[in-house]
């Protein structure tokens, strides 16, 4: 019993220490965000890595998700003679939920892992220490450009993903479910509101922040050796994915509960 209590207590203390470290890390990012020097080359390189190179993954995922959604809603709607809702539900579902969440998760898998592995390797090979001896703050050089790039790039990815997802629904709707091309498009657009799109993009920005912060955080606290880099990579992806799903709930609650 005492051992169990001690273990629980130790776990709780470790959790508190972890959360404390994360809060301090976020605070250090904020304090370095607006103070020069700014590393523009690192920022543009991150935009390419996070935004441009993630486009194929997000695009393919969104296309198939939109198509599958159209099939599911058609099958479900047929039970109530409501097949005509397919275009509007696909559009709203993609733009509000599936586009941001699936896009965020795909980017988390691709980008959080790569950031954690890259920074973790730099940490264990003393490249982070080398930055300090070269009078360069590692948070400013390695973390800030990635966080800003992710916050800006992920909403764009979500926007592109939303469009491709709706396109996926349109392709399946018109080729497999016998919808008229024009009617499908009109129904998709008519039932979609500006706030639906904007809320998805805001979610994208929040998810981008989560992904980059988690990748950088676990990379920077990476312990020595290949095992440490592997552990950091795994922790970054798992925590970013869980936090994205949790944040999605709270954002949805905040945006749409009323």
């Amino acid at each position, binding site marked *: 019993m005492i051992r169990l209590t001690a273990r629980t207590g130790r776990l709780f203390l470790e959790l508190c220490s972890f959360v404390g470290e994360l809060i301090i890390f976020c605070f250090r990012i904020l304090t370095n965000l607006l103070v020069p*020097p700014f590393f523009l080359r690192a920022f543009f390189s991150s935009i390419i890595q996070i935004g441009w190179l993630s486009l194929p993954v997000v695009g393919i995922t969104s296309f198939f998700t939109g198509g599958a959604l159209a099939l599911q809603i058609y099958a479900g709607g047929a039970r109530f003679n409501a097949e005509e809702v397919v275009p509007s539900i696909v559009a709203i579902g993609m733009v509000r939920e599936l586009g941001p969440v699936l896009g965020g998760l795909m980017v988390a898998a691709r980008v959080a892992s790569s950031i954690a592995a*890259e920074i973790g390797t730099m940490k264990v090979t003393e490249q982070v*220490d*080398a930055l*300090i001896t*070269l*009078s360069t703050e590692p948070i400013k*050089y390695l973390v800030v450009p990635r966080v800003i790039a992710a916050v800006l790039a992920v909403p764009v990815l979500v926007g592109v993903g939303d469009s491709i997802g709706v396109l996926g629904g349109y392709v399946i709707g018109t080729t497999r479910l016998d919808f008229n091309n024009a009617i499908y498009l009109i129904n998709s657009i008519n039932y979609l509101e500006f706030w639906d799109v904007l809320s998805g993009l805001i979610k994208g920005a929040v998810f981008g922040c989560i992904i980059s912060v988690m990748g950088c955080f676990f990379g920077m606290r990476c312990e020595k050796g290949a095992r440490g880099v592997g552990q950091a990579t795994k922790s970054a992806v798992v925590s970013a994915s869980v936090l994205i799903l949790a944040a999605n709930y709270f954002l949805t609650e905040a945006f749409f509960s009323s």
Partner: protein
Amino acid sequence: MIEVSDLHKSFDQNNVLKGVNLKISDGKSMVIIGASGQGKSVILKCLLGLIKPDKGLVLLNGIDPNSKEKNIALAKIGMLFQGGALFDSLPVWQNVAFRYLNGKRKISTSEARKIAIDKLNRVGLKDSFADSFPSELSGGMQKRVALARAIATEPEIIFFDEPTTGLDPIMAQVINKLIRELVVEMGVTAVTITHDMQSVRSIADEVALLHAGTIQWTGPLKNIDKSKNKYLNQFISGSGKGPIETLR
């Protein structure tokens, strides 16, 4: 001038440094020797402000690298890491000219490249390596690039962490000679940590032996073979018998 006074550092229950005192005069090359795990790298990290000591004071030309003036102290130092620590996402010349491409010393790209190539030539590398990436170079070449980066801004103090580890004896001697040449030519204060006696004899003006968390012996290079210090004698001879415990 580098001054280390009563330096203490522990990691959990392990007291690594237990009151290290050292003084290194301007323009002198000090080599700190000692068996593995005795805290040589910890001293170096405390000198660089990478690790905060538990107790004691470190001054680099009168500035504490663990204080708010850290960047003033770091602006005047160069560091050669054991593994080179070159940024593998940047080409060689950008590694060498890193300080000239980023931060307060920023200059134009063409000027920075010119300085980088000049420093690469100084350490014996041709211009053609400037656009290579560190992963395309051999271990010896990487050490040279790291050395070029360490001297790029003409620092007042240079630290060398195990400069010859992982190199073959011939390349190790080339690097030792290069370090000695640069130290003499630039008139810098140098601190090297190593357990390679060949490096000690090539680089040092003065030697300090670290064991059990304190400096057991310090003196000019010429005195190391005449010393009656048991720790130093055992270290130089590489004998298994003596006050330095060995694991078998």
